[in-house]
């Protein structure tokens, strides 16, 4: 018998998980849709698509942590934990079921629904902008860019490239996996607090170290490890960027290594988990 992976066992586990948790997961997804629709309703007055699109990204990132938490909320009660841990499936299969449902099912589903909502609202408002407010083609593209444009346009700082969204999605999902497996009680709140605390501490530490090296007041911004703003005594600002190779290393470390490490820690933690 293969004790690591078996298609039949994995299929049974997926079926069981979706059957038992499908209703709650579905409810959460409906809430996500409602929140995105609510954000897009701001187009009526704001007539700019950057706000609802940014909100949609934030909602998407936030919701992955909720999905993971629902899938792994098996450890707050010992009886539920015992039933889950003694279910005849491997640690890898249990871990993979969480990964598959969040990354292979939820992510595409979210993106498709987000894109459909975006297209419906923007089609309507773009037409309105042309017919009623006589927007030029240039102004229309500037104020009402479609989601696909926001995802692919790298130079516009108000947009979020898909690679960054994916890295954040996987990273936050990984934080939720590790948090759910380390904390039995109130895992969601504890993981969120720990994540925020670590982020702030890292930023503070970054400023402190950089300030000590440069000897001036510096500001690096939260989780920005490739550039720093130096403020001298006569309040002049200098922006210092790391070399391109360092920027690449930092980029891959944050976007690839950290999310992958978090998901792998989750896999290891499955085998260490006790009730």
């Amino acid at each position, binding site marked *: 018998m293969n004790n690591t992976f078996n298609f039949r066992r994995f299929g*049974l586990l997926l079926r069981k998980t979706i059957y038992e948790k499908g209703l709650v997961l579905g409810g959460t997804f409906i809430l996500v849709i409602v929140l995105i629709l609510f954000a897009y309703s701001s187009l009526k007055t704001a007539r700019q698509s950057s706000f609802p699109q940014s909100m949609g990204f934030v909602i998407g990132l936030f919701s992955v942590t909720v999905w993971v938490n629902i899938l792994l909320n098996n450890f707050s009660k010992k009886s539920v934990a*015992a039933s889950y841990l*003694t*279910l005849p499936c*491997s640690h890898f299969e249990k871990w993979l079921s969480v990964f598959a449902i969040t990354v292979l099912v939820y992510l595409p589903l979210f993106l498709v629904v987000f894109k459909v909502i975006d297209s419906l609202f923007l089609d309507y408002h773009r037409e309105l902008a042309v017919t009623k407010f006589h927007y030029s083609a240039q102004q229309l593209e500037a104020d009402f860019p479609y989601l696909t444009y926001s995802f692919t346009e790298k130079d516009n700082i108000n947009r979020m490239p898909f690679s960054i969204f994916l890295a954040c999605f996987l990273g936050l999902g990984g934080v939720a996996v590790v948090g759910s497996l380390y904390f039995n009680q109130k895992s969601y709140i504890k993981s969120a607090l720990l994540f925020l605390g670590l982020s702030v501490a890292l930023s503070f530490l970054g400023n402190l170290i950089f300030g000590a090296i440069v000897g001036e007041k510096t500001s690096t911004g939260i989780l920005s490890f490739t550039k720093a703003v130096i403020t001298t005594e006569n309040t002049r600002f200098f922006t210092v960027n790391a070399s391109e190779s360092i920027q690449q290393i930092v980029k891959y470390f944050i976007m690839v290594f950290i999310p992958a490490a978090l998901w792998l820690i989750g896999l290891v933690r499955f085998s260490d988990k006790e*009730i």
Partner: protein
Amino acid sequence: MINIQNLSFGYNRKKMLYENLSLSLEAGSIYGLLGKNGAGKSTLLCNMMGLLFPVSGKIEVVKHNPQKRQPSFLQNVYFIPEEVALPSISIHTYLELYAPFYPKFNENQFYEYLKELEVPNDQKLSKMSFGQQKKAIIAFGLACNTQVLIMDEPTNGLDIPSKSQFRKLVAAALTEERLFIISTHQVRDLDNLIDQILIIDESEVLLKASITSINEKLCFKTVTELNENVLYAEDSLKGKTVVAANVMGEDSKINMEHLFNAVIANPNRVKEIFN
């Protein structure tokens, strides 16, 4: 079938619950695991199931290390915890989702057990009373036909007719290849059911003996005067009910409660008698 060698376990490294506990349990028997509240019965069972990991020592259950929780191990053991938490699904759906994980599961047996235990099979599990839930999970556990079935306080929450039905079903389900462990502090619930008794207290096994050997070595009777063979005495209407060393080879019916009290009160005398 279950071998424990020099097991040490503690929730706190400074205060160990077990130190160098060794135990061997064979197939074809129903073991009654008795102990006071907090003696560590559930902890020992969780160690056998791989839900808690020993600090040191070795546990082998059906030739597997439980700590690895491999599917080949988990489909051969079934654990009924003291508190059961069942999903909000019907018994039929539960069967559809969970039974395929256990290759030897017998559906006919399951419905037969449900009928015997008078569990309605048209309700959602979460809507059932605690006792009904417990009976449903006992029926499921028995029908899994696993080599090892571990039950932690299975009679808690069961009404009087269900307790006797439980004893009947468990006794009938035992085969030469299976091993059942029933932990309880309600010793009377195991009357006429178990054929091996394990009494643990203060992190050690005070008694591990078969019912036959207990009958040979101890006698349970009512006397008017106490002598040096008496291990435990309790006032009764007709005199004193005692547990005494069976020096005369008398036949008597084991009183579980008195046996338990005798072992707890005189562990060293009992060890001398049985070694």
